């Protein structure tokens, strides 16, 4: 049992309409019978004046009966509308509310077939959300192009249509062969049409303007239910998207290294600062031998779950190839082909992969379309590591060239994704390479960790924290 506070407000039991209609019919039949009996009386045996008085009283009785019927009908309408309103405040299921509306209307305006049609998101199609009496559409929801038929007219002109004989109305489109008359009423909220209420009858001239008036309140409730269901769907979709993003974020985080390895001669640090939109940034350290350390930074085009998924594929394939093959050209060649087969051409990955020979202080690398890492020499020179080949995953069979750089103590390599250099200030100015170099050199003597932290702070200061659209991903390799 529903024990919510609303239950107390439920109006008294509904009039028993079927029985009531019978009583009204029998009373009016009895009245007609009495009239006929009176007419059949032989005229000489009746006093004319008394007969007229008698007939007047019968007229009054008939009038009273009509009035009582009208009052009862209004009472029924109010009762039904209250019920609909209550269900509207309790039920969230659109179909449930609309079904109740259709069945309630049936008791006020009799029909042979009825439907509540909802305009879909694009506004071009009406969908029969709930239907009664359409045999042809027995299963599933009906979709109908907008702009046709009486419903189309009603929605376009935002006015109800009552048609006494559909065969004589050029606007009518036959959807149900038995139909002779029809009533279509547009549903709107906030001045915007959201659907249409449609009643059909197998008899001519069933519906009147009065019926249209009666339908109005039900129609406005239906419109509110439809609008509320739409808003509810939007909230759910937004929630789902946020959940997906959180999932993608967790996925991305779980694939990033928790800490940098400790090696001789070098001081390493890496960081990924997430933005609101989850990106597909990736960085990693891959231990290849006891002297060789693989270093990778990469950025997947696009955002969200697909980007996180591609990042996971890249990581898996790179880790497998990096261990299986010695040559960096071969590794990237194979990773490129693998990604090309796994992702759509408009999704691609930029990546920088290098192998650090720790004791010898050499870095052999190849740059697959990634923002060139900055090699900041101790003496102030700056080198960009651009040698390599095409972005990964877009074109099969691409070739990748390698190059070698040698570190001296005090040199520092800064790897980054475009979220860093392209972070814009409120004035639209990008962070750029010069600011990157400056912020890196500023704290270089304090170690790689200090450099990554200082860079993240500098970018956030430049952009204003709320303004960051992209992940910030950085790696710093500093030679001791």
């Amino acid at each position, binding site marked *: 049992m529903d024990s919510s506070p609303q239950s107390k407000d439920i109006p008294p039991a509904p009039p028993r309409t079927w029985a009531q209609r019978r009583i009204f019919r029998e009373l009016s039949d009895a009245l007609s019978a009495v009239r006929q009996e009176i007419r059949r009386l032989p005229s000489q045996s009746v006093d004319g004046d008394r007969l007229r008085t008698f007939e007047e009283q019968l007229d009054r009785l008939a009038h009273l009966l009509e009035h009582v019927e009208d009052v009862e009908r209004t009472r029924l309408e109010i009762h039904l509308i209250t019920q609909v309103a209550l269900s509207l405040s309790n039920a969230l299921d659109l179909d449930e509310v609309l079904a109740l509306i259709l069945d309630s209307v049936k008791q006020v305006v009799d029909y042979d077939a009825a439907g509540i049609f909802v305009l879909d998101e694009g506004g071009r199609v009406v969908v029969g959300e709930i239907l009664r009496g359409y045999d042809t559409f027995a299963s599933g929801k009906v979709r109908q192009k907008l702009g046709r038929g009486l419903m189309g007219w009603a929605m376009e002109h935002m006015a109800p249509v009552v048609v006494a004989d559909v065969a004589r109305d050029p606007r009518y489109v036959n959807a149900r062969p038995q139909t002779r008359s029809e009533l279509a009423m547009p549903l709107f909220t906030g001045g915007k049409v959201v659907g249409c209420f449609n009643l059909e009858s197998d008899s001519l001239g069933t519906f009147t303007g009065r019926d249209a008036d009666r339908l109005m309140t039900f129609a406005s409730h239906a419109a509110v239910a439809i609008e509320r269901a739409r808003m509810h769907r939007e909230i759910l979709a937004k929630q789902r998207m946020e959940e997906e993003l959180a999932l993608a974020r967790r996925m991305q985080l779980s694939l990033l290294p928790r800490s940098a390895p400790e090696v001789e001669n070098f001081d390493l640090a890496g960081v990924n600062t997430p933005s609101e939109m989850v990106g597909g940034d990736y960085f990693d350290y891959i231990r290849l031998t006891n002297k060789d350390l693989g270093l990778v930074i990469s950025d997947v085009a696009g955002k969200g779950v697909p980007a996180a998924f591609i990042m996971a594929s890249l990581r898996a394939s790179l880790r497998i190839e990096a261990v299986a093959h010695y040559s960096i050209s071969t590794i990237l060649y194979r990773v490129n082909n693998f990604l090309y087969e796994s992702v759509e051409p*408009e999704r*691609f990955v930029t990546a920088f992969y290098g192998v650090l020979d720790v004791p010898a202080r050499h870095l052999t690398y190849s740059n697959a379309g990634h923002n060139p890492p900055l090699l900041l020499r101790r003496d102030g020179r700056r080198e960009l590591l651009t040698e390599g080949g095409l*972005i990964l995953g877009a074109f099969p069979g691409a070739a990748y060239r390698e190059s070698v750089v040698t570190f001296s103590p005090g040199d520092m390599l800064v790897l980054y994704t475009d979220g860093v250099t392209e972070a814009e200030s409120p004035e639209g100015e990008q962070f750029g390479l010069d600011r990157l170099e400056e912020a890196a050199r500023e704290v270089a003597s304090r170690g790689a960790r200090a450099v990554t932290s200082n860079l993240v702070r500098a970018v956030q200061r430049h952009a204003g924290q709320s303004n960051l659209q992209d992940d910030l991903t950085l790696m710093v390799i500093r030679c001791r």
Partner: protein
Amino acid sequence: MRVETREQDSVLILKIHGKMMGGPEATTFQETIKQHVAEGYRKFIFDLGEVDWMNSSGLGSLIGGLTTIKNAGGELKLAAVTEKIHSLFLITKLVTIFESYDTVDEALNSFPAGK
């Protein structure tokens, strides 16, 4: 992003305006290219002179377009590539992939005459 399409000497010229980035616009763009290829067009020029911003997803749209056109045996040329887009092409090494010309006329003239 807004695309203006015109045809000249059986070459379809798509002038792209605004920001080239991901999302539903990018999907529509891919659909449009597929549609043109299905209609029988094989020679395309993307006029990028009015593109004021492009991110990696926008670059992805160009690659997707090129792939669709090439797979159908067609040709794509770029015209009026801005400095910003050119620097993206340099970083990603896509300069080696896209054939680009300073103006639409130059791109038009680069197609062999006749059919």
